[in-house]
C-alpha cells in the first residue's frame, strides 16, 4: 500500500523535525493534563498520537496550535524556538488542524465553512461563485457529493466531520493535524481520507493523526507517540510494535478486557413473543422512508449502513426526538404516538445521540449532574434524588465506566471527549431503561473503554434489556447484535438474524442493492 520512497518516510537522523515540542506541561486547576511531554514531527510522515481517553492527546494538540498557553516547555518550529499564541498564528505558519469536536460554524454554508478566512476574492470582494466551485472540487476529491451552498447544520454529523477535514486539507500546509477525524466515518470514508493523507504525506506534509482504531493506525501511521495520564510513555515506529505491545503501552498493563471481547456473550434467540417495540411504516419527509422494525426483549438489533443512510433518523423517530409524518409505533403493543422524548422516556426508552456536543453534553454542569439529568428529569423536579443515592450512583458509574478524572464535581466541559461520551452513556444506564437506543455510543472512545461498553451492552441484553445499536464501525455492530438491519438511501433494505454475518456480507448487501438500483434505473 505504501508507495513513497523510504528516504522521505524514514527521516530519522537526516531530516530535521518540522515541529518539536520539548517537555511540555499544562495544568488545569488541579488537573495536570500534560506533564513533560515531548513530541517530534518529521516532514513526510504520519505520526499517530496514542493514548486512552483523557491521556492528553487533544490537549497536546491545542498546546501546539496556540489554543492553550503552555505552562512549561519549549516548542521548536523548523529548529527555532517559537510558540504560537493563537490558532490564527499557527494556521498562518502552515499548521492546519481538525480539532476533535467538529469545529465549524453551523449557520454558514458548507462552502463558506471550508473557505472562511481565505475566501477567493475579486476586486476585494468575495467571489461566491468561485468559492462554491472550489469547495465542490475539494469535496469531490474526498468523495463527498453535497451541494456546497447548503447550510452546514442541515447535514448529519458525519458529513460535518468530512467538511471539517476538507477545510483542513484544502490549504497548502506543512503540518496537518487530525484529532479523531474518523470517529464517525464508515470504512469507505476512512479509506478516502487515507488516500488523501497518503498523497499529502508523499508531498512532504507532516501529519498528526489521532484515532482509537488500532487497525487504522497500523494502516496509515509511520511513527507514534504514546501518552498515558498526561505523561510521555514512548516514541515508537509503528512497524516495530505489535498491537498487543501498543495496547500495553497505552494502558500500562495487560489488557484482559480485550480477551473477553472475543468470548462475547451468546446471542439470544430472537423473534419470539410480542415485540417490545414495533414500528410500522415509520417515516418522515426528506429524511426517512417508511420503515418497519421490531424489537424483542433482551435483543440487540444492530443497524448497519453507510453515511446518511437514515440510521440516525430512524433512531430519532423511535425516541420521539423528531415526530414521524407517517406510520405507527407501538411500545408493548400499546399504540402511542411519541410526541416528545419525554414520552419515550416515560415508556422506558433511552436514546444516546450521536452528536455529543450539541445534543448530549451540558457543559457547565458537573459530571454528576450530567449523569443524573435524565433520571432527575423523569422523577420530576419536586423529587430530588437523595444525596446518598446520588453519590452512590455517580460513584458506581464512574468506576464501572472508568471515567477520568474520577471527580463527580468536575465540570463536564473539562472532560476529554471520550470521557464525556462515557458520562452520557451512564446518564441513560442510570434510568434503567427497557429499550436502549445507542447511536454511535463508542464514538471517540478508547479501545479499552470500547470493550467495556460492548461488554456492558451484552451483559444488559442478557438481563433482558433491548438495544438498538448504531455504529459506523461494522465489526462492532456485527459483534454485538442478535439481529441485523441494513439501511441505504434512507430506507431499510435488508434484515436478518445475525448468524456469523461478516463485514463483507453486509457490504455486499449494500452494494447489491446499489446494483439493483442501477439496473432498475
Amino acid at each position, binding site marked *: 500500500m505504501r508507495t513513497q520512497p523510504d528516504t522521505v518516510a524514514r527521516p530519522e537522523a537526516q531530516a530535521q523535525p518540522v515541529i518539536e515540542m520539548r517537555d511540555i506541561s499544562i495544568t488545569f486547576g488541579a488537573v495536570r493534563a500534560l506533564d513533560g511531554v515531548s513530541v517530534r514531527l518529521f516532514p513526510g510522515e504520519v505520526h499517530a498520537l496514542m493514548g486512552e481517553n483523557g491521556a492528553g492527546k487533544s490537549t497536546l494538540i491545542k498546546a501546539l496550535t496556540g*489554543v492553550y*498557553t503552555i505552562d512549561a516547555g519549549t516548542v521548536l518550529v523548523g529548529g527555532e524556538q517559537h510558540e504560537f499564541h493563537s490558532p490564527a498564528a499557527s494556521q498562518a505558519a502552515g499548521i492546519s488542524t481538525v480539532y*476533535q469536536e467538529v469545529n465549524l460554524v453551523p449557520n454558514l454554508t458548507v462552502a463558506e465553512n471550508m473557505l472562511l478566512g481565505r475566501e477567493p476574492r475579486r476586486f476585494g470582494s468575495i467571489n461566491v461563485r468561485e468559492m462554491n466551485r472550489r469547495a465542490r472540487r475539494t469535496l469531490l476529491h474526498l468523495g463527498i457529493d453535497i451541494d456546497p451552498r447548503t447550510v452546514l447544520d442541515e447535514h448529519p454529523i458525519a458529513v460535518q466531520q468530512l467538511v471539517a477535514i476538507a477545510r483542513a486539507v484544502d490549504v497548502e500546509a506543512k503540518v496537518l493535524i487530525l484529532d479523531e477525524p474518523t470517529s464517525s466515518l464508515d470504512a469507505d470514508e476512512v479509506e478516502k481520507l487515507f488516500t488523501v493523507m497518503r498523497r499529502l504525506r508523499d508531498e512532504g506534509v507532516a501529519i498528526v493523526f489521532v484515532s482509537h482504531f488500532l487497525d487504522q493506525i497500523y494502516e496509515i501511521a509511520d511513527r507514534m507517540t504514546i501518552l498515558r495520564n498526561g505523561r510521555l510513555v514512548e516514541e515508537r515506529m509503528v512497524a516495530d510494535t505489535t498491537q498487543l505491545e501498543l495496547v500495553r503501552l497505552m494502558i500500562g498493563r495487560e489488557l484482559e478486557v480485550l480477551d473477553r471481547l472475543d468470548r462475547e456473550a451468546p446471542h439470544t434467540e430472537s423473534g419470539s413473543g410480542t415485540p417490545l417495540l414495533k414500528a410500522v411504516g415509520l417515516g418522515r419527509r426528506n429524511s426517512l422512508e417508511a420503515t418497519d422494525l421490531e424489537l424483542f426483549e433482551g435483543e440487540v438489533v444492530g443497524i448497519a449502513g453507510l453515511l446518511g443512510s437514515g440510521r440516525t433518523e430512524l433512531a430519532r423517530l423511535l425516541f420521539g426526538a423528531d415526530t414521524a409524518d407517517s406510520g405507527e409505533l407501538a411500545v408493548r403493543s400499546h399504540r402511542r404516538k411519541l410526541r416528545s*422524548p*419525554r414520552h419515550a422516556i416515560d415508556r422506558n426508552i433511552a436514546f444516546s445521540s450521536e452528536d455529543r456536543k450539541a*445534543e448530549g453534553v451540558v457543559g457547565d454542569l458537573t459530571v454528576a449532574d450530567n449523569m443524573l439529568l435524565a433520571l432527575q428529569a423523569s422523577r420530576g*423536579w419536586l*423529587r*430530588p434524588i437523595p444525596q446518598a443515592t446520588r453519590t452512590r450512583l455517580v460513584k458506581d458509574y464512574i468506576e464501572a465506566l472508568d471515567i477520568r478524572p474520577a471527580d463527580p464535581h468536575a465540570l463536564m466541559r473539562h472532560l476529554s471527549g471520550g470521557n464525556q461520551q462515557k458520562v452520557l452513556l451512564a446518564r441513560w444506564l442510570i434510568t434503567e431503561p427497557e429499550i436502549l437506543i445507542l447511536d454511535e455510543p463508542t464514538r471517540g472512545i478508547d479501545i479499552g473503554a470500547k470493550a467495556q461498553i460492548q461488554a456492558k451492552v451484552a451483559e444488559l441484553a442478557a438481563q433482558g434489556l433491548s438495544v438498538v445499536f448504531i455504529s459506523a464501525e461494522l465489526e462492532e455492530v456485527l459483534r454485538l447484535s442478535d439481529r441485523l438491519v441494513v439501511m441505504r438511501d434512507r430506507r431499510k433494505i435488508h434484515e436478518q438474524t445475525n448468524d456469523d454475518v461478516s463485514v463483507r456480507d453486509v457490504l455486499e448487501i449494500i452494494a447489491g442493492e446499489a446494483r439493483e438500483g442501477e439496473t432498475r434505473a
Partner: protein
Amino acid sequence: MLRHQLLWPVLALLVLLAVNVIAKPAFLDVRMQDGHLYGNVIDIMRNSAPVMLVALGMTLVIATRGIDLSVGAIAAIAAAVACTRIIGAADEAALSTAVMAMTYAIVVCIVLGAWNGLLVSVLGIQPIIATLILMVAGRGISMAITDGQITTVNNPWFSDLASGFVLTLPLAFLVAVGMVVFTALLTRRTALGMLIEAVGINPEASRLAGVRARTIIWTVYAFSGLCAGLAGLVIAANTNSVNANSLGLWIELDAILAVVIGGTSLMGGRFSLAGTFVGALFIAALARTIPNIGIPSEVNYLFKAVVVIAVCLLQSPKARALLRVRRPGAPTLANGVTA
C-alpha cells in the same frame, strides 16, 4: 466556584459603603426611633426590595437564557390593580381590603408572566421581543386601569408593606429576603435549579434527556411576573400611590445589572441567588450614594458609568490577571475558549 465569585460583589458593596463613610462619616450610624431602626443602612435595605424582587425573577429567567423586559410594566399593572381595588373597596382602610387587593394584583401578574412564558416557550418567540410586547402594552394597560391619573390610597396595612417594620427591620426588605430564601430553597433543595440550568446551557440536550423544558421556561416567566408584581406593590406602598407612567420605569435595567453584578452570566446557565441579593443591595446603595456624597444631578450618569465599569473590571478575571503579575505555572487559557 460560585461561592468564590460572591467575593467580588461583596467587595464592591463594601467599597461603595466605604466611599460613603469617607464623604459623610455618620453614614453608617443607625439609631432606634419609634421602636424600629433608622439610618441610611436601613433605608438602603428597604429601597433595595423592589430591585431585589425583580432581579430574583430575572435571575431565573436569565438562567434559562432568556430576558424579561416587561417587569417594569408588570409592576405598574400590579400597583394599578391593587390601588384601584383599594379605593374601590367598601372599607378603604381595612386589612381585608389590602389583602384582597394584593392577592388580586399578584394573580394578574402571574397570568401576565405566564403569557410571556407562552410566547417564549410554546410559540418560540425570542424572549427580548416577546417581553417587549408586554413592556409596551403593559404600561398602556396600567394607565387604562388608573385612567392615567395618579391614584392615591389610604390603607395603613398596604402602606406597611413598604414603610412597616417587623423586628425593627423594614418589612419590604424582609419580604424580599423571604422571597430570595424561599426561591433558594425551592431551586436548591429540589432539582429545579439544576433543571433550569440544564435548559439554559443546552436546551436540545435537556430536551433529549427528558427535561420538560417548555414547562420550566413557562414557570420561570410566570415566577418573574409574580416577583415583578410584588415589586410593584412595594413601590406603590412606598408612596401610597400609583403613577402608571413612571412606576418601575427602567427597573429592568437595574435588575439585570444586579443579576450580572451578582455573577450570573447573561448567556444562561449557572445562576447565583446570593449574588443577586448582593447585587440588588449594591444598586440600592449606589442610588443612595449619589445624594449622600452630593453629586450634582447632571453628573449622576457619569458617576454610574464609572461605578459600573469599575465593578465589572473588578469581576473580570482577565482584568484582574492583567493587574497581577503573572505567576509562572498559573492556569492560563490563551484565548479563554474551551472547545
